[in-house]
C-alpha cells in the first residue's frame, strides 16, 4: 500500500503529472506490447519468415 500511496502522491495527485504519466505510460506500453507480440509471432513461426532465411541469400552476394 505504501507503494500505491507514493505513486499516487508523486504522479496521480496533480492533473499535470497525471496527464504526463498517462502519455508516457501509453508510449512505453505500446512499444513493449508491440515488441512482445512480434517476438512471439516470430517464435511461433521460427524458420518460416523471410527474416529467418534471408541470410542464406544475402551473404552469398556480399562475399
Amino acid at each position, binding site marked *: 500500500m505504501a507503494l500505491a500511496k507514493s505513486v499516487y502522491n508523486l504522479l496521480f495527485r496533480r492533473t499535470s503529472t497525471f496527464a504526463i504519466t498517462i502519455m508516457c505510460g501509453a508510449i512505453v506500453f505500446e512499444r513493449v506490447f508491440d515488441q512482445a*507480440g512480434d517476438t512471439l509471432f516470430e517464435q511461433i513461426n521460427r524458420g518460416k519468415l523471410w527474416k529467418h532465411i534471408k541470410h542464406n541469400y544475402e551473404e552469398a552476394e556480399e562475399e
Partner: protein
Amino acid sequence: MAALRVVATTGSGRTLLNAAKCTHTHKAQMSFASLPKGKKVALTTLGVLTTGGIGLALALQQSVKASDLELHPPNYPWSHNGMVSSLDHASIRRGYQVYKQVCSACHSMEYLAFRNLVGVSHTEAEVKAIAEEIEVVDGPDDSGEMFTRPGKLSDYFPKPYPNPEAARVANNGALPPDLSYIVNARHGGEDYVFSLLTGYCDPPAGVSVREGLYYNPYFPGQAIGMAPPIYNEVLEYEDGTPATMSQVAKDVCTFLRWAAEPEHDQRKRMGLKLLMGSAILIPLVYYMKRHRWSVLKSRKIAYRPPK
C-alpha cells in the same frame, strides 16, 4: 402487480408493505407456467414443429450439394493453416521458381510486379537481376519511337501471350486463367489447386475425353484443357530440395497463396496482437461488470402478500 415491492432496506420497506395492504390485487397471467394444460401442449408442439422444420430444411439444402459430380479436394495440412501461422517463405521462393520455369509458359500473373518479391522471397539485388532478364517495351522516346529496355523492379511480370485470343489459339481454345488471385477465385483455394495439379489420372472405363483435353476428377466437368504441367523432377530447385511432384505442387500453391494474399503474414501478426490485447482487456471488462453489478446483485427483494 401492485403487491410486488422492491425493498432496499427493511426499515423503509415496512411502510411500503403497509401501504400495499389496502390495494386490490389480481393474478398475473403472463408466464408459461400459469397457462392451462391444453395451451401448454399446443405451444410446445408448435415449438417442436418449427425447430424440426428449420432443421429439416437445412438438412435438405445440404444434401443438394452432394449431387455434384466433381471430386472435392481434401483439406491438406498447410504449414500456414493455423490461426497465427505465417507462410513458409522458403516455399514461396521455390514456388516462384516453379511458376517462372513451368506455369509462366501459359499463365500470366499480371497483378504481380517484381518489386513485390523483395523482402518476401528474394533480396533486392536478386530481384533486380531477375527483372533485367526480361525485355520491356517502353516509350515513346524523344523521337516518338517505342524502344525496349531491360526490366526493372517496378515492372509487372511478363505475359506469355499478348492477348486472350492468342492464348486461346495456342491452347486448343482453352484460356489459361491469370494466376494472380487464382487460389481466392476457386472454391477450395490451395487445396483445390494442389489436387488439380496432382490429380490427373486415366479416365474411368466408359468415359472418353475429347482430343486435346485431359481427364482430371477435381476439375468441374472432369475434362481440362491444361496438359499435366508437373511431374517428378520437372525442374531442379536451386536450394537442392528434391523436386518430387507433390513438393513442386505444394511450393507453387504456397506461392499462389502469397500472391493472392500478400498481406497474409501481417494479418496474422495483427491477429495475434489483437488476441494478446483481448487477454488484457476482457478480464478487465469482466471485473468492471461484476463491480458495477455488485450493487444490484446484493439487493434484497422481498414479497409480502397482502393479508
